[in-house]
């Protein structure tokens, strides 16, 4: 039991299971998964589907935080990428009542992702080459990104009429939501890159001690640049899923607070904000915790206003559990005689 509770994923997994158990307790059919209209259906599937954009962004954020960075521009980048895609796809009813797109779908999606990756590269250049603090460097794009997106759309919400565009956020493949396939692919690819190549080791060493990593011959600037670019790309993908889900792109409100939820998911998952220690699986659990909490609050019929307060209290609780000083204090209160041993680092 003691070894189990020491495992990095113990607390996030326990929190998630607790939330699911509480939901199931109040709503008997909560855990039920059924097969309807040729695809999986149920609360769990719904949570996974809705959590998809957050998971994708949080995976990128995990790596950025692991190299001692932070990206608070992901919400704005998501909005920008959604806007680019929606503008390029466009779509209007032609004579036959069919909807044609202005540009081929893959061109639109490719352009949107390219813009997002460029945004990530820009953030990376500011942090790595110009040596800015990550919060400030990405604050620039966070402020300006939405402005640029609104400039492109003229402040309007762009509605998309071209049905194939809706697949990303609403479609199913083999009975499973397409968004979930994308998320799973992103996770598996990253996991392989981290565990089967030296990339994971390099990222950990940069986060642990950037100077030592550089001296040891790790190409830290190139790796950090790649990590920021990937985070931008992930934000762009999340933006596409979100906008495809609502069949439109709103430059002002798409991906609002996404950066905060992503950082929250990463923290809840057990990744250290100080860099070095990170866990991709923990991040996925963290994102699922956030979405389960939201769905639970909806399904319990609790006023949605409570959501933010509960989220805040949860963050405080998780933060305190992760704090060495707090654990030492608790140990001191519970077992005064053992305080010294428990408090040691």
């Amino acid at each position: 039991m003691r070894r189990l509770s020491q495992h990095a994923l113990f607390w996030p997994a326990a929190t998630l299971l607790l939330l699911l158990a509480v939901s199931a307790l109040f709503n008997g059919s909560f855990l039920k998964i059924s097969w309807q209209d040729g695809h999986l259906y149920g609360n769990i599937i719904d949570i996974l589907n809705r959590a998809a954009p957050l998971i994708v962004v949080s995976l990128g954020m995990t790596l950025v935080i692991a190299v001692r960075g932070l990206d608070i521009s992901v919400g704005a980048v998501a909005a920008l990428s959604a806007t680019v895609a929606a503008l390029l796809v466009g779509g209007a009813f032609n004579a036959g009542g069919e909807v044609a797109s202005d540009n081929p779908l893959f061109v639109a999606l490719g352009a949107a992702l390219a813009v997002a990756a460029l945004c990530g590269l820009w953030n990376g250049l500011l942090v790595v080459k110009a040596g800015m603090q990550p919060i400030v460097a990405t604050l620039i794009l966070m402020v300006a990104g939405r402005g640029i997106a609104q400039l492109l759309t003229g402040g309007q919400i762009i509605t998309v009429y071209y049905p194939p565009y809706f697949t990303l956020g609403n479609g199913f493949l083999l009975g499973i939501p397409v968004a979930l396939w994308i998320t799973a692919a992103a996770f598996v690819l990253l996991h392989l890159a981290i565990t089967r190549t030296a990339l994971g080791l390099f990222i950990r060493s940069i986060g642990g001690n950037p100077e030592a990593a550089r001296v040891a011959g790790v190409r830290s600037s190139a790796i950090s640049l790649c990590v920021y670019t990937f985070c931008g790309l992930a934000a762009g993908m999340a933006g596409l899923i979100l906008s495809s889900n609502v069949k439109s792109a709103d430059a002002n409100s798409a991906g609002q607070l996404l950066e905060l939820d992503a950082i929250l998911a990463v923290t809840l998952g057990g990744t250290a904000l100080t860099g070095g220690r990170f866990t991709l699986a923990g991040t996925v659990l963290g994102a699922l915790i956030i979405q389960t909490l939201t769905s639970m609050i909806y399904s319990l019929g609790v006023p949605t206003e409570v959501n933010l307060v509960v989220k805040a209290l949860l963050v405080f609780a998780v933060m305190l559990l992760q704090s060495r000083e707090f654990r030492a204090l608790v140990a001191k209160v519970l077992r005064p005689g053992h305080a010294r041993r428990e408090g040691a680092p």
Partner: protein
Amino acid sequence: MPLCITVLLFVGMAAFGGIRYGGFLSPQVFLNLFIDNAFLLVVAVGMTFVILSGGIDLSVGALIALSTMVAATLLDAGWNPYAAMVAVLLLGGAFGAAQGFLIQRFGLAPFIVTLAGMFLARGCCYLINTESIPIVDSTFSGIAQARIPVGGGASLTIGAAVAVLVVLAAMRLAHSTEFGRTVYAIGGAEPSARLMGLAVDSAKIKVYLLSGLLAAMGGLLMTFYMLSGYSLHAVGLELDAIAAVVIGGTLLAGGVGYVAGTLFGVLILGIIQTLIAFEGTLSSWWTKIVVGALLLLFCLLQRLFEGRLRKTA
């Protein structure tokens, strides 16, 4: 030196406005910068202290909203308006101090603590009421409408006057008190400040207490300005405050900066909006793009400045 650039930029923008539009350089247009940005100015001053100490406070926007809600609700419940104001200020101070305590006592990251504080404050707003609460109290509307003539036909609101007083008091607090010097020392190097025997722990808590208190005061000023309490007031204001502090030449790493710089940072944000309003055809999103570009410019300048400092040292 960054401060000089900030001031020059402000003067340059004002001159540009004066050449381009008649009536731009009137005293009232200048004073309106203070009137329209009074709450931002007060909050940005609190943020300056937090950033000088090497921290950050993301909860201020939400705390402003909570202050407007609490003020409006207390007035609705028949409280004495002055008692309501004191209650709001106490609440803000306590909220900030609690965050400071968590940061100091348990060594938590300011970013995450104040992020959770932001969720908590906004959430409490929604718990109180999801609708906007109008304020009909005669004292509040009296304060909102009162004008202080400053000569030449121009005038200030009470809110703007309070903001100016806060800036003056903060300048004194930062540059000629023990607390102010301690804040600079913590931002410069916390272990050194500790070794010097400075009261680091209490100063760290006080910094967040001050930020919470000033956010509550900003909330009251916003209540005078809007005459309503609403949970969606001041969304994203924390970013404006941080941007104003950075444009004002304060280093986000802490330890270097001036309260006066923040004043000009806020004035620059204000004058961008005034210029766009005078232009008439430009849309509001240009504000975001220009602010982003200015942030970039100032950060690059700061890096350049730091580099040169290191070479001469």
